[in-house]
Each structure stands twice: as structure tokens, then as C-alpha cells.
């Protein structure tokens, strides 16, 4: 009888050992290395998202997962996180960016957009360089077109405009430029009546859809 009891104790102990070992391995495998890319100049704090409805839900008094001031690789568990951008001057439209880490996640980008008022201020400064870029790309630009509606997007690195023709037989065109390395370049070359997302996968879809709405009264 004692022998049987001892054997059962051994079996139970081995089951517990196997379960604990499995849980330990599962826990270890739930961590992954993720490249967090941050726009230059940003300071961000990453918190665990507490779930529930809404765009984000975190406890600012809890211990953050990480504080970053530059792009870097961090080791993080699968789950949902809220990245809070330091925004003392209220420059960002959405200073909290939510992201999900799951099997297959190897990078996340923290790239919040500026507020529309900040973008409008930046646009005034960028206009001469943008016009110059259009003129350089299309020497006949100013003879044939004027700029009717225009807007900067994201961190002021995307620009969209409606070009209105001087001749009634021509079409109003839409154009998107991107600022890279300090200079503007036309991305949707040539300007188009309607810009399609499928053929411009490198342009954020929000930007294309917003440019498509420019001048439509919305």
C-alpha cells in the first residue's frame, strides 16, 4: 500500500515538474525582440495597455515597460502597449500610440502626427521650397496650374495639394510630395486626377485619402 502511495506521489511530482517546466518555457517564449522606431527628437514611455474599450487605457502611475529617446530594440512580452509621447507644448494630435506585440511582430513605429495648427504653421515655412520642387519637376507648372488646396500631413513630411488648371480643357490634378533629407520630391509623378492607394504603397493611406478629399468640401 505504502509502495503504491509512494509511486503516486512520484507520479504527481513528475506531473508538477513537467507542468512547471512547460509554463517556464512558455513564459520565456512569450518574449520577443522588437525594433521600436521613434521619430528623432521624441521621448516616449511605454506602458502595458489595460484593455477595455477606447483607443488606449494605461495607468500612468504604474511602472513603465520602457522609456526611450531614440530607436532601439527592446525585449517585450506579447500583448498590447500604449506609447506615450512627451508633448509638453501640445504639438501632437494623438500623443498616445497603441501597438500590439504578437508572434511575428519584429518592429513597431512610433510616429504621431502633429496637430493641424502646428502643420499649418509649418506649411507657411515650407511653401517656397514646395513650389520650387514642383517648378523644378515641371518647368511649365506655373503657366498651366495654380495651387488651390494644400495641406501638410503627419510630422510635416508629407504634402498634398490640388492643382487647378488655367485652361478649362485641362483637369484638376492632385499631387503628393514627401520631404526626405531636407528636400521635397514629387512622389505621385505625374500629378493625377485621382491618386490610387494600390499603386502607391509607400504613401500612408491616410494621406492619400485626405488628399483625395481636398477641395471636395470635406
Amino acid at each position: 500500500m505504502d509502495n503504491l502511495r509512494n509511486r503516486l506521489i512520484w507520479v504527481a511530482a513528475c506531473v508538477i515538474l513537467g507542468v512547471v517546466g512547460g509554463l517556464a518555457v512558455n513564459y520565456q517564449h512569450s518574449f520577443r525582440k522588437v525594433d521600436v522606431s521613434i521619430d528623432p527628437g521624441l521621448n516616449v514611455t511605454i506602458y502595458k495597455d489595460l484593455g477595455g474599450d477606447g483607443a488606449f487605457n494605461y495607468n500612468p502611475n504604474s511602472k513603465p515597460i520602457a522609456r526611450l529617446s531614440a530607436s532601439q530594440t527592446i525585449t517585450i512580452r506579447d500583448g498590447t502597449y500604449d506609447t506615450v509621447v512627451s508633448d509638453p507644448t501640445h504639438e501632437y494630435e494623438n500623443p498616445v500610440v497603441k501597438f500590439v506585440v504578437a508572434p511575428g511582430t519584429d518592429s513597431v513605429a512610433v510616429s504621431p502626427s502633429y496637430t493641424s495648427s502646428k502643420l499649418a504653421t509649418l506649411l507657411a515655412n515650407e511653401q517656397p521650397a514646395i513650389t520650387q520642387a514642383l517648378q523644378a519637376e515641371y518647368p511649365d507648372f506655373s503657366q498651366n496650374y495654380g495651387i488651390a488646396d494644400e495641406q501638410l500631413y503627419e510630422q510635416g513630411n508629407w504634402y498634398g495639394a490640388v492643382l487647378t488648371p488655367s485652361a478649362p480643357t485641362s483637369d484638376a490634378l492632385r499631387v503628393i510630395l514627401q520631404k526626405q533629407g531636407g528636400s521635397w520630391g514629387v512622389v505621385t509623378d505625374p500629378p493625377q486626377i485621382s491618386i490610387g492607394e494600390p499603386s502607391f504603397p509607400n504613401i500612408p493611406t491616410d494621406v492619400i485619402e485626405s488628399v483625395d478629399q481636398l477641395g471636395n468640401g470635406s
Partner: protein
Amino acid sequence: MNMSTRWSFPIFLLLVVGISFLVVIKAGQTSTNTFLQIQVAPSGASVAIDSHDSGSGKQEINPGQHSVTVRKHGFATQTRAVTVNPGQTVYFGAILEPNSSSTQNWYNKHSSDQKLSQTIADHSADYQSSTDQTATPFLQLLPLSYGDGMGGLVTIAQGVPVPGSSQPAIYVTAKAPSTRQGVLEYMRSRGYDPATMDIVFIGTVDPLQEAGTEDYR
């Protein structure tokens, strides 16, 4: 007590540890719920996803872009990139072309592989059509034609993708700029967002382009 009796209980305990361990590991594996449905011809061709042998049939994978390679001796190897979104099941069909004298006319000589290749071709066409219509529901309304109110005709039809795109483009023929804008308004009024589609306006003249350039979006 002989040797086999002496060691049977410790071995049993080791098995208990191992099975408990594997059960917990398996239970902890979260499904990506993302799959590649792979079908290849000829039968017996090997399939590798991101250089790892996988076999054909339904394969669970991580969401994202993957490289799928199908090879068989005597046939030209095919490698294609495929992007699978989370929770999606993407069909991947490949028919290898014979490239040696020993496999010449392979499909004519092997009726089962011929049947398989026909099934893959049909399934690929159906899948592409349904994928296109899911991505661009407006395609279901095409072709369309109507009078522009000025004696001209507006036609809207599906056509080949434009450079840089994998989705079918929508080709519009309309004489006047106002009519072309009218086509976009028509799409918006029906709940379709023109920005999500590649639209080619045929026969327009772009003053920003060199003389002779007529077609552009």
C-alpha cells in the same frame, strides 16, 4: 527484481514529465489563425516557406510577407512572395513548367498531374477574381457605360493593373474634365472611395508632361 522491472518505473516517470511538459507547451502555443493554402503541380513537388520545408495543404504561418519556393527535379523552380494579413487564409497555387527532356510533355503524359494543374489554374483564377472584388468592391458593378449629357459616352471598365500595383485598375473613358470629375463623384455617391482604387483616365492630355503623353491617371 530484474533490470527491466527496476528501470520501468523511473522510465515511466520520465515519460510523465515529458508528456506533462509537452501538453503545457502545446496548450501555451497561441494560434496565429493565419494560413497559406498551398496546392502545387506536379504532385510530389517540394514546398518551402521562407526556406523551411513545409509541404502543401493548409499551413499555419505568422502574418506578414513570406517567400514560397516550389521545386521538383526536371521542372523550373518557382519562388514567389506572398503577403498574408492576420487571420487571413491565402491560396497559393503553383504549376511547375518542365525544363528537361525527361519531363517534356509531362502534363500530357500524366493525366493526374494534368487534372491537378487544371484544378490549380481554375482555383487561382477564381481566387484572384474574388480577392480583387473583395479589395475593390466597385469592380462588381463593371463594366458600366452611360451618356455624359453632352452627346458623349462614359465607359468604366476593369483593366490590367498599373505599374507598381497588383490590383486591377479601373479604366475610364470620358471626354470632358467635368465628366471625369463626375465619375469620381458618382463613385463617392455610391459609397466607393476612389482613393482606394487605381483609376486610369484614358485619352486625357497632361500639360505638365512632354508632348505626346496622353494617358495618365
